[in-house]
């Protein structure tokens, strides 16, 4: 029995490693583009709600706790507690997805979804004066290499601002790809929880056998870990200069 459990845990971790590779590729690509188009990424990041990002993280941490307690209840064979904690985990998962829906809807209304209808982000749109500001910052960055660049004409400033608007679209490509993939994992997690709940109802788990609960728990915690990194990377690039 012990050997079987060991093999299951090992198998689950190997699966999670493939997940790390999938998300890791996205994280690496994100970091490179963030370095290339820093100002555009700051502008894009500042247009998403940091408050929601904070709430997501707390919701997921709570759901990780309830999941850990569900595994513990399964291990001790207390059916009632297993049900309660799995349902609590599911509720928190649904809360996460609902907030995600609200946030996506806001992005939809602001035309921040990459594609034909993408509109320039708030930083430029709502504060026309900032165009020169952002352009000047961008210019400063470029000038670090060669100091003989000519001063920026208003024309060039507008061009630079337009360029940043274009680059911020790349930020939103990453934003939707990464949070979307994460949300998909949450949905798969909810399906897993439903399946677990049916099994718990039949009283299948006890101190001798609780592998499905344990492995679903590993999956759920992994999805939580992905969010722990998504929060600072996407929501908090640079909030110190106005938010």
């Amino acid at each position, binding site marked *: 029995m012990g050997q079987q459990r*060991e093999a299951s845990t*090992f198998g689950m971790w190997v699966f999670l490693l493939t997940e790390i*590779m999938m998300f890791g*590729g996205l994280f690496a690509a994100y970091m490179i583009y963030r370095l290339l188009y820093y100002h555009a990424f700051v502008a894009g990041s500042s247009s998403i709600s940091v408050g929601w990002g904070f709430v997501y993280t707390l919701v997921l941490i709570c759901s990780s706790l309830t999941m850990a307690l569900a*595994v513990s209840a399964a291990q001790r064979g207390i059916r009632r507690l297993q049900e309660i904690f799995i349902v609590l985990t599911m509720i928190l998962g649904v809360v996460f997805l609902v907030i995600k829906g609200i946030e996506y809807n806001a992005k939809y209304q602001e035309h921040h979804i990459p594609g034909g209808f993408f509109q320039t982000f708030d930083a430029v749109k709502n504060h026309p004066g900032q165009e020169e500001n952002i352009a000047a910052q961008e210019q400063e960055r470029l000038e670090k290499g060669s100091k003989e660049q000519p001063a920026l004409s208003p024309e060039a400033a507008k061009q630079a601002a337009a360029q940043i608007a274009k680059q911020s679209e790349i930020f939103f490509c990453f934003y939707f790809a990464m949070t979307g993939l994460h949300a998909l994992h949450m949905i798969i997690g909810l399906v897993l929880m439903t399946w677990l709940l049916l099994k718990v109802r039949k009283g299948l788990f006890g101190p001798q056998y609780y592998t499905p609960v344990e492995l679903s728990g590993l999956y759920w915690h992994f999805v939580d870990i992905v969010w722990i990194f998504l929060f600072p990377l996407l929501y*908090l690039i640079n909030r110190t200069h106005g938010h």
Partner: protein
Amino acid sequence: MSEGAHPTHKVYYLVFIALAIGTIVTYEVAFIDLTFFGINFNPIVALTIACTKATLVILFFMHVRYSSKQTWITVAAGFFWLLIMITLDLSDYLTRGIIHRQ
């Protein structure tokens, strides 16, 4: 076979409190400008806290702390691979253009 062992509930609650505090600190620190010697330390602080939180989840919620050596090696290999990929990628992109400038 040690993987049957699980932490007590007290450990779970302590880890949870640590994670919550980490989240609040991440949020609050993000609004303070931590630029020293021309380097912006905000992302460094945020990612350090994130790494600490992830380690806590892996060790305690995912029971790796109480698992066999095989599980330890599997998990460590996975994250080490990620570290290699990001290090090599960034050492490429961060150093591009240096030769041109000289």
